[in-house]
């Protein structure tokens, strides 16, 4: 009886050892795939409490002046050029009355009226697109940027109905068919068919210490900074100039300001 119990314990002990050592080997490989711990900010990352953009439209002479900004944005994000109403737009131009439709001033000065204005996602403080998204594929980051998870998006387009600024595009067509074989920026993912996308305020560039592509290409005419920091360039520009935002009455609190 005693002997058999001892042999049982022996076998059991050996089995446990064998099993645990086997298990110890397995997590070694699995552990290489899923890194434990949490993700932190990179050392060079730029951060703010609330990112915002100020566009000094007075310093742009015409639509041609905005071209390098649009090109920079679309290149960095592999935005396809689709020539119909099912197109993709991240950063684009429109007239004053389409950009600021609430301002129905017939006698607005000709210069302001005839100018082109850049449009992009407003990264609202109170974004309706985030409110309506049924899968949290669109979400607000702690620094105020409204971001997108292209792999979670189910393509229901509720966010497009929800966005009062028409800032969102849906990939009706396969966007990769409208990009060259070697994409302009291999470092940024191309999107798949059937998901929504939009401007990201270049969150991926801020993470490595770079300013947004359009800001960089604007040669100082687009300011980008922390809205909650009194000393930031954007706050100083807003303090000393007259600025407007798109459709402010809707309460979304856009993060893009226009100096007119």
């Amino acid at each position: 009886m005693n002997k058999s119990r001892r042999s049982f314990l022996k076998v059991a002990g050996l089995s446990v050892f064998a099993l645990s050592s086997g298990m110890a080997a397995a997590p070694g490989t699995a552990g290489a795939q899923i890194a434990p711990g949490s993700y932190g900010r990179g050392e060079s990352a730029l951060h703010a409490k609330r990112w915002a953009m100020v566009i000094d439209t007075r310093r742009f002479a015409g639509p041609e002046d905005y071209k390098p900004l649009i090109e920079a944005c679309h290149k960095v994000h592999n935005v396809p050029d689709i020539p119909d109403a099912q197109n993709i737009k991240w950063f684009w131009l429109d007239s004053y009355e389409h950009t600021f439709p609430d301002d129905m001033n017939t006698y607005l000065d000709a210069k302001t009226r005839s100018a082109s204005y850049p449009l992009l996602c407003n990264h609202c403080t109170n974004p309706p697109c985030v409110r309506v998204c049924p899968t949290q594929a669109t979400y607000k980051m702690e620094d105020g940027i409204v971001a997108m998870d292209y792999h979670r998006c189910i393509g229901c387009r509720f966010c497009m109905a929800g966005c009062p600024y028409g800032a969102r595009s849906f990939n009706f067509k396969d966007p990769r068919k409208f990009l060259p074989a070697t994409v302009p920026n291999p470092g940024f993912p191309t999107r798949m068919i059937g998901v929504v996308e939009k401007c990201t305020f270049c969150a991926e560039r801020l993470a490595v210490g770079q300013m947004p592509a359009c800001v960089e290409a604007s040669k100082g005419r687009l300011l980008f900074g922390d809205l909650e920091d009194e000393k930031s360039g954007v706050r100083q520009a807003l303090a000393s100039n007259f600025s407007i935002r798109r459709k402010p009455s809707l309460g979304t609190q856009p993060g893009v300001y226009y100096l007119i």
Partner: protein
Amino acid sequence: MLEKLLSAPKTYYLWLIFLLCLIAGCACVYLQQLGEGLSITGMSRDVSWGLYISQFTYFVGVAASAVMLVLPAYFHHYKKFKRMIIFGEFMAVAAVVMCALFIVVDLGQPQRMLNVMLHPTPNSVMFYDMMVLIGYLTLNIIIGWVTLEAERLGVEPPNWVKPLIYLSILWAFSIHTVTAFLYAGIPGRHYWLTAIMAARFLSSAFCSGPAILLLLVFLVRRLTGFDPGKEAVKTLSTIIVYAMCINVFFYLLELFTAFYSQIPGHSEPIAFLFAGHDGHMAWVSYWMWAAVIMAFLSLAILIPPSSRDNPTLLPVALVMLVAATWIDKGLGLLIGGFTPNMYETVTPYMPTGREIIVALGVYAIGALVLSLLWKIALGVKREVNNFSD
């Protein structure tokens, strides 16, 4: 009770085969859509929802309308509806199946649709919409099946189903209210941003749903001899008239606010729907005017009791009523919501042929579900001699 499907005339099976062929044909077009994406539709960046979502909205209403039979029968013990009630419940089942499919065909990445449940998002109305529709489908399948079985066995339905029936009455109101909230809570879409949206949805559902039910029951009467009962038809058509009057009244309220306030955002979508833009009628404008004419003509027939009870005039009026409400909710709602667009300009939308075929496929699946369920119900009614007076 499934055996009732095995003893049917040849024409019934021919009808089923026809539906299956139609579904297969339309499924081929849907496969194209899976490959080429929603680019095969007439939707665009500015008009990002179209025929699919509008049909979804319309059929949520049809599903909810079963309550117009269930409520009088169970809250007011109105016995005359008892014979017809199962057809309303089974129509609701078919309608919810169609709703679910209209959502699926509208998704850009349909294989990810369970993300709605994997990442439940209480601030999104679409999350609630999915929940209430699944709940309503389950309720109607259980209630319909259990009460039909009880009828077949000649016993009262079990007591545990009663609370479910009362729940389904409240639930019916909730599904269409939540569907209205999909639209009515969005800032910046002027045509939808109206507190009366849910009330309008319910009133339009409570006239159009029973109207579709009556038309289908008349068809079944002609094909099989099943008689819903004269009194039941009379009462239901009275309900339809009241709901339609309220529906038209609610729309007129919208017109008052839009045009008396003269706030451009409120009036422009309605002006576009009825008059187009830049002096050119949009194609939808002709449909909208047709809806207005049919709505008032149907009321002109339905309001006087003499013409309402006339067996030839009643179906004509109901067809016009269904067409009018379908145009209002199935075309006008979405097109008016997206036009003018976010830049206060006009991006035209018209469903493409392939988009219509995919929608037709969903209609055919709805017809198939309805044909199967109603056949079972009719078989049971015949067996227990509750087929006609």
